[in-house]
């Protein structure tokens, strides 16, 4: 069967499955809408958390980033898994014992303050929208490349699917669709990875394959060969990094702590029956996530090796089909600087900026003509890092159904994360802003309706961001993790582990962390991007890692202010004592 037909079948079937699950698991109460009634089995919740967590960035972009960053890509592997240790050990069981619906719920109650709750809601909405815009870009890429529909329609179809199961089913619908989406995405990720690992090393398990010898008779290990090939072409060795140690340290820490502070991840642990289940669930989540993460590193390394061997010094006339396919989608470009008709892949940018193709005519070898100014290095190839995972099955010549599977997997990853984010946005509006702050008299029915309206509005905004991505979106993903690390994590952590932390300290700390991190990132990413070089950074820490400094400031200011102001009232001490002990968790709707 044609690959294109297979893609339609795979994607169509997976969508039908998600909708069927949504209809079966419709939410009837606010408790079901916000936290799936608090009755989700920890293994099921772990799987849903994994799908929620592994976004378009994890599925589509991460291995590509690692392929081009080499050792420096480790920050994502450690950063996006190590956060689960923090969640399991420091946050999840206590937040579940607390037993409410949202993250601002905890902060507002523990710090006996509506102001604290509103600050938390602002952090949450900002973090979640930044994140969601990235998911929509992923949906757009998959649709335009694999389904041949314009990005506009791709985003509208994707939003329609999410609308059905997020608005109808709430957390309950999302949880069970995410389980299905996890199965689709992990299968779609592993199958091509096994194939490619087997082709290159003879060992089908990627994590072992990367530590084995290449089966080309050279007797070299994969990483040795990769280092050799790259240094021959003038690149840095794959196993060496180019970032400074302090920057690697801070980025990893910011990603870990940020992960533990992301509201859509934390809220998943409100859905299990009791505190001890929250711990187990975090363990299961990490297990399901680790399957993809220990594979992503090898996939990146194999992809880089494959890419160089199939592209470098190849004449454009004989360029593989995937190369011209992605060129047609603007994500690959070639500029024949030396006029030899062959593609030279070397360090540096082939030309300035992202490719702008001219509409008229073709180059001497039939390639698309670029309008960008050429740079004076020897590199002729531009490749968008995001395509490595999607193009991998084609690069390795895998059968059509594997390509179709990857398309369905990419969509599953993007949609599951988008749904989780939409849910935390809508519940923070209907529950934290309406019910708990501005309209306490609202009925359960009214609150549920408000939650559905908020989810619908959030979908429309997210869809708009996906269709017309503002230029700054790609630049500010660092915001989500940096802000979560600098604002929410310290407030939640001290709320559990410190009896003395009070309203004044927590608010001052959150505001300090938030403002400092926001200004630092905005300065280097938006207002003065030209100044974004190591020499100008505070202590040599890039905007990606600055959340750690924001976090330290948050802790310092909060502890200082709390010491100078009144201790929290007696009932807060009782509350903290109560959440520290696992026994006696109630289902959320009993409050």
């Amino acid at each position, binding site marked *: 069967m044609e690959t294109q037909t297979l893609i339609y079948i795979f994607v169509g079937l997976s969508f039908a499955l998600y909708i069927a699950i949504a209809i079966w698991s419709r939410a009837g109460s606010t408790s079901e809408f916000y936290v799936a009634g608090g009755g989700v089995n920890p293994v099921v919740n772990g799987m849903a958390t994994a799908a929620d967590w592994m976004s378009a960035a994890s599925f589509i972009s991460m291995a590509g980033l690692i392929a081009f960053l080499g050792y420096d890509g480790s920050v994502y592997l*450690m950063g996006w898994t190590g956060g689960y240790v923090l969640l399991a050990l420091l946050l999840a069981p206590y937040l579940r014992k607390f037993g409410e619906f949202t993250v601002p719920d905890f902060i507002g109650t523990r710090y006996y303050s509506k102001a604290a709750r509103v600050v938390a809601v602002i952090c949450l909405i900002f973090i979640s929208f930044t994140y969601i815009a990235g998911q929509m870009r992923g949906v757009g890429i998959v649709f335009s490349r694999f389904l041949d529909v314009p990005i506009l329609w791709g985003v509208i179809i994707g939003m329609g699917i999410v609308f059905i199961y997020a608005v109808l089913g709430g957390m309950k619908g999302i949880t069970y669709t995410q389980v299905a989406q996890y199965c689709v995405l992990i299968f779609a990720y592993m199958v091509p990875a096994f194939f490619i690992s087997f082709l290159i090393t003879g060992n089908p398990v990627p994590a072992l394959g990367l530590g084995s010898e290449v089966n080309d008779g050279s007797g070299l*290990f994969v990483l040795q060969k990769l280092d050799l090939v790259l240094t021959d072409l003038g690149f840095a060795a794959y196993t060496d990094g180019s970032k400074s140690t302090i920057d690697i340290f801070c980025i990893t820490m910011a990603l870990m702590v940020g992960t533990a502070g992301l509201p859509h991840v934390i809220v998943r642990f409100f859905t299990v029956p009791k505190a001890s289940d929250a711990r187990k669930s975090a363990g299961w989540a990490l297990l399901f996530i680790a399957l993809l993460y220990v594979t992503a590193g090898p996939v990146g390394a194999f992809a880089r090796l494959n890419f160089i061997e199939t592209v470098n010094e190849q004449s454009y006339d004989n360029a593989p089909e995937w190369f011209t396919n992605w060129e047609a989608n603007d994500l690959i470009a070639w500029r024949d600087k030396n006029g030899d008709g062959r593609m030279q892949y070397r360090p540096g940018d082939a030309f300035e900026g992202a490719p702008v193709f001219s509409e008229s005519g073709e180059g001497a070898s039939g390639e698309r003509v670029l309008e960008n100014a050429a740079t004076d290095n020897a590199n002729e190839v531009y490749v968008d890092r995001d395509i490595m995972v999607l193009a991998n099955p084609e690069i390795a010549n895998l059968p059509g159904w594997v390509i179709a599977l990857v398309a369905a997997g990419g969509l599953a990853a993007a949609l599951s994360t988008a749904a989780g984010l939409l849910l935390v946005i809508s519940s923070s509006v209907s529950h934290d802003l309406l019910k708990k702050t501005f309209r306490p008299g609202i009925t359960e029915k009214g609150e549920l309706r408000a939650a559905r309206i908020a989810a619908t509005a959030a979908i429309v905004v997210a869809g708009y961001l996906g269709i017309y991505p503002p230029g700054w979106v790609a630049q500010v993903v660092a915001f989500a993790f940096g802000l979560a690390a600098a604002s929410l994590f310290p407030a939640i952590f001290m709320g559990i582990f410190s009896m003395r932390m009070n309203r004044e300290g927590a608010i001052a700390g959150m505001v300090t962390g938030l403002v400092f991190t926001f200004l630092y990132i905005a300065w280097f990413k938006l207002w003065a991007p030209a100044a974004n070089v190591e020499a100008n950074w505070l202590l040599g820490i890039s905007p990606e890692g600055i959340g750690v400094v924001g976090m330290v400031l948050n802790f310092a200011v909060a502890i200082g202010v709390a010491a100078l102001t009144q201790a929290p009232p007696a009932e807060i001490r009782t509350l903290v004592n109560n959440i520290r002990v696992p026994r006696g968790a109630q289902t959320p709707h009993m409050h």
Partner: protein
Amino acid sequence: MESEETRDDKVAASQKAYWRANIRLLCVLMSIWFAVSFGAGIIFRDFLDQFSLGGYPLGFWFAQQGSIYVFLILIAIYVVAMHRIERKFDLDDDDDS
């Protein structure tokens, strides 16, 4: 929920001891968490890279593979050890619905 005043001192003391045991366990596990990722994977990577595990330089392996396996083991240990501590102080949630 019982209020603080009605609990006798014995319960309060046992809660205190339970919390101390919990903190002790956390300190041990968090030290290992820090040592494998920030220690072996980042700070001491160059030193460890002179050894290898199969075709992996050791520091590189910790950064891209090993730390993730250790994270998983840490959570597993925590789940088991914490359950034991809670039962010892009779604060577990085994019988909660």
